[in-house]
Structures are given as C-alpha cells and as structure tokens.
C-alpha cells in the first residue's frame, strides 16, 4: 500500500526501470477507417496504467495490439525487448508473458474451473499436472474462490467468473497483465470483488494496463492515466492531475460526462 502511494506522487515512472512495452508511431486501420493514430506510449516495468475514453476511441483495440489479438499496420510495438511482427513464434513467446482479462470473461465452458486454470500451464509451459494443479489452487486461493475449483464456469456468478479469469491469466506467471473493461459486463454488486482482486494485484507490483470506466479504481491504483479519443492519445497524466486539472478540452468533457 505504501509503495503504491509513494509511486502515485511521481507524474512519470522512474526512468531507471526498463520498458515493458514500447509503442512508437503505431497506426491501425480497419479498411479505410483509421482506428489508431500515431500511438506513442512507453510502459515501464511495474507501472499501472489506466486507459479511459469514450467508446469507440480505440482503447480496447490499442491494448489488443499488444498481444497481437489485433494487428497494427504501421509503427512499432516492442514487448519486453521483442518486436511484434508477423513472426508467429515471437507472437507466441510474447503471448506467454502477457496475461489478458476480457470483458466477457471468456472462460472455457466445457472445462471445470481447475481445468481452465491448468490448461495452458500444461500445454504451453509443459508443466507437470500436479504442479499445474498446485499453481492453479494457489491462484484460486488468491482470488478467494478455492471452493469452486471443481465447478463449471456456468455455475459461477459473473464476479466469480471474472476472478477465475484473472487467476487463469496469473497461472502463466505473466510479466504484464492487460484488462479490457473487466467490470463492464458485471452486475453492480459484483464490481467490487473484481476491483479488489485487481487492487491486490497492483499492490504486488504487477505491470498492468487496464481499460476501464471505474474512475475510483483508476484514482486508487493508477500511476498514469491515458485518455484516448478518436484513436488518439489525447492526454497522459498522473491521476490527481488528470481528475482535478485535466489539460485538454476533450478530457474535461469526458470527465464531466462520467463523474456525476
């Protein structure tokens, strides 16, 4: 808690930390539609970034480019020193080290919770079964639902499913975690349990990029807030500055609409 509070004061991350993600002049088009315009963004190791902006601003698309769920057409994305190209092997290497949590959880409905968690440690990291099970149980305890291990995703509440999805990503011991609107599909009473899990993760020093509309959460954990609109990064600032004194007209408008 203390360390995160200390970090929050600094407007930019400590420059001694090496870059976890580096985007330089990154552009993406859907056909003739220019979704991402000249994105330049460096994320340091251990940094917590919250990305916000109106819908259609390209924030989800941007973080999906980082693990190549979307392909960028121009510019550079370097993850942990490896540049993303069409090289499938490199893509696999990068994906192994990036965990992702989706809006709609995307758990595998035909597998139990435990099997969901063990799948990629066994098949991607070649972990032994017992070892994968141990890891899975460890993370299920961390997200506080070890008792659900043998149920199927459909038997769990939305909040529980999203916590399982977080645990599933953590089982691969990722260096970076991407969150794509993790609480947007949840009933209001379940938002907190998921955010609490994410706060705990942030306090452990995980590098996090989080697309969210949860501004309280952003204020609590973010080192920096990235505000996007119409495919551009409009403003990048520390939370206290961003919320109290947004420098851009569009940020002001957006904050006016969501903080009521």
């Amino acid at each position, binding site marked *: 808690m203390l360390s995160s509070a200390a970090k929050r004061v600094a407007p930019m991350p400590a420059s001694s930390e090496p870059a976890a993600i580096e985007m330089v002049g990154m552009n993406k088009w859907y056909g003739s539609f220019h979704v991402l315009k000249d994105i330049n963004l460096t994320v340091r190791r251990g940094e917590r970034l919250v990305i916000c902006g109106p819908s259609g601003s390209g924030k989800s698309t941007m973080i999906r480019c980082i693990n190549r769920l979307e392909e960028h057409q121009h510019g550079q994305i370097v993850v942990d020193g490896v540049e993303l190209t069409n090289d499938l092997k490199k893509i696999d290497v990068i994906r192994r080290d990036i965990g*992702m949590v989706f809006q709609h959880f995307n758990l595998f409905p035909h597998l139990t919770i435990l099997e969901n968690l063990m799948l990629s440690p066994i098949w991607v990291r070649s972990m032994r079964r017992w070892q994968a099970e141990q890891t899975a149980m460890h993370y299920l305890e961390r997200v506080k639902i070890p008792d659900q291990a043998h149920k199927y995703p459909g038997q769990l509440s939305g909040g529980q499913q999203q916590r399982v999805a977080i645990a599933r990503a953590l089982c691969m011991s990722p260096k970076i975690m991407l969150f794509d609107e993790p609480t947007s599909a949840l009933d209001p009473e379940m938002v907190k349990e998921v955010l609490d899990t994410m706060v705990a993760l942030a306090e452990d020093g995980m590098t996090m990029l989080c697309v969210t509309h949860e501004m309280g959460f952003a204020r609590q954990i973010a080192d920096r807030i990235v505000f996007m609109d119409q495919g551009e990064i409009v403003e990048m600032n520390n939370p206290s500055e961003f919320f109290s004194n947004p420098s851009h007209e569009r940020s002001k408008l957006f904050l006016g609409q969501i903080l009521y």
Partner: protein
Amino acid sequence: MKALSLSLQTAPMPGQIRVGALWRYAKLLFGTPLNAALTLLFGTMIVVTVPPMLRWLVIDGVLFDPDPNACRVAAGACWSFIYAKSGQLLFGIYPFDERWRPALVCLLILALLGWSVRPASWTPRLAALWVAALVLIFWLMAGGFGLIEVPTSSWGGLPVTLILTVVAIGVAFPVGILLALARRSTMPAIRIGTVVLIESVRGLPLLSILFVASIMMPLFLPEALLPDKFVRALVALTIFAAAYLAEVIRGGLQAIPNGQYEAAAALGLPFWRTQYLVILPQAIRVAIPALANTIIVMIKNTSLVLVVGLFDLISSGKAALADPDWPSPAAETFLFIGAIFFALSFSFARFADFLERRGLTAH
C-alpha cells in the same frame, strides 16, 4: 396449462362426488366430440390390425419346427427359417467351416463398441486399441498367416455391415473435422479446394459414388494399382460420410464465440492445441444431435454396397431367401434384418443422447 388443468381435475370440489380414475380417463377419451371421434377411429384401427398381426407373428407362426414343410402349411410367420438359416443370414457366403471367424469378428467389434462408450476409456490408448483390433479383424476375415484365405467377394452379412460402419465412420469423423477446419481456413487455396471437394461429394448420390469406385475405377486404373472391391466401397463410403460430417461439424464451429479463440490465443495456445483443447470439444458438443442423425443415416447407407456386389446383411438375406428347400419368408427375413439395423441405430441414438445429457451438466 397442463399442470393447471390437472390440478383442477384432481382437486375435489365441494359438493361434488369424488371421481374415480375410470371416470377421468373416460372424460379424457370422450370429453369432446373430436376426442370421442379420434378415440373411436384409433380404437377401431387397433381392433382391426393388432389381433391379425399377433395371429400372424405368434399364434399361427412356426416358431421352432425345423421342418421346412411346417412353414408351407402354416398360415403364420416362418420364424424357424430365421433360426435354421441364421448362419447364412449373419455371415453370407463365408465358407461354412470358417464361420467362427466372422462370428468372432462381430463379437470383437460389438465388445469394443461397448467398451468405447464408457467415458473412462476415452484415452489415446483406445485409438491404439481400435487400430490393433482392426488389424486383427482384417486378418480374421481375410485369412493368411495360418488361416485359410477368404477373398472379400466371399465376405458377407453382419461382419461386412459392422466393418463398413465402424471403419467408414471412424475414419470419416477425423477427416470430417479436418475438412471443416479447412473450409474455415483463411488460406484461399485450402478453403476453395475443400469447398469444391465437399460440394461435389454432397452433390452426388452415394449410389453413383459407389458405382464410380467399383465400376469406373477399373476402367482407368491398371489391375496392379486397383484396390480390392471391398476397400474401394469402404473408401467411397468414408469420403461420402466425411463430406457430410464436415458440414455438421462446421455448423458446430460456427456456434463458438470469438472470445474463445481470443482467450486461447491470449494464453499462448497455438492453433492445433486451441482447436483440440478448446474449440472442437465445444463445437462437437453443440453438433451432437445433427452428428447423431448423420451417423445413423450412414449406418443404414452401408447397405447400399449391395449394388456393387458386396454382401452386406440385406444381400445375405436375399441370398438366404433363394434356398429352394424353403418357402421364401421375405417379410420375416427383412423384419429380422431390420431388427439388427434398428438395434445398431437405436443403440447409437441412446449413446448420443447420453453424450448430450452429459454435456448439459457440464455447462
């Protein structure tokens, strides 16, 4: 609606005499003019058809008398023919002294099928077991290595039906999966090639594919390269089944949301592992009712090989009927053969039903 009307009927009203079950049924059967008319119609049909049917099947039927003449004088069914000719019906013109071999093959296949339906036995070992069993089965049927050789033209009856069914569907299923995946490929050459293959096979009647395999292939292939007629028919059935199964499986694949692919990709699972571990188990589960339907049709389609001169159950039945010592009890024979096909198809339908219910609890 149903529950409401039932509770109204069963709840005794004040001042009303408690009605008996008999009265309730009478009301159900004759409650309205339409119900009364339907009851009379179906009642008459039952009275007219059932007693004569029973008389033919059992009362006037010859059950055990091994003398063919008993059937000539009897007014009912000739079941003793089925009993006396069971060897020929089940094994066709397979050499008499070697009939233990096809009998063993049938038992082996049925035992393996019974073993394979248990979820506990679904391991890679099971596939290996089947491959080993098929080698054994072909050795038992064809002979060689110490057994008298029997050409495929002498094979017949139940083992032919079972081998064609099991091998054609067993091979067509994985091939169908590959075709379904290929048809969804982003690579145009693979996709278009698959579409052409599937659509041409689906566009032809099975009969014509069998004729091509058995009659046309010898016209343009040299004798040495020509596979056995049985193998050619087997390949034709397999290709036909694969094309149909591919489309059914593709329907299942279509039902899998994109998020499943994305989640698998984000976890670093490569293409084939994603398909095998995440996508196909779900797609096949979705497609179970349609798959079961296609497979049951394929079980019965195997009987079409009779047009290219292979002796399946139905051709064996027809051959048995040709015996001049017996009157030709065709109805009984085809009822018997029908019962075998029904047992196979119905067992499979139950198995599919079991899989479906098992899938429901897992969601």
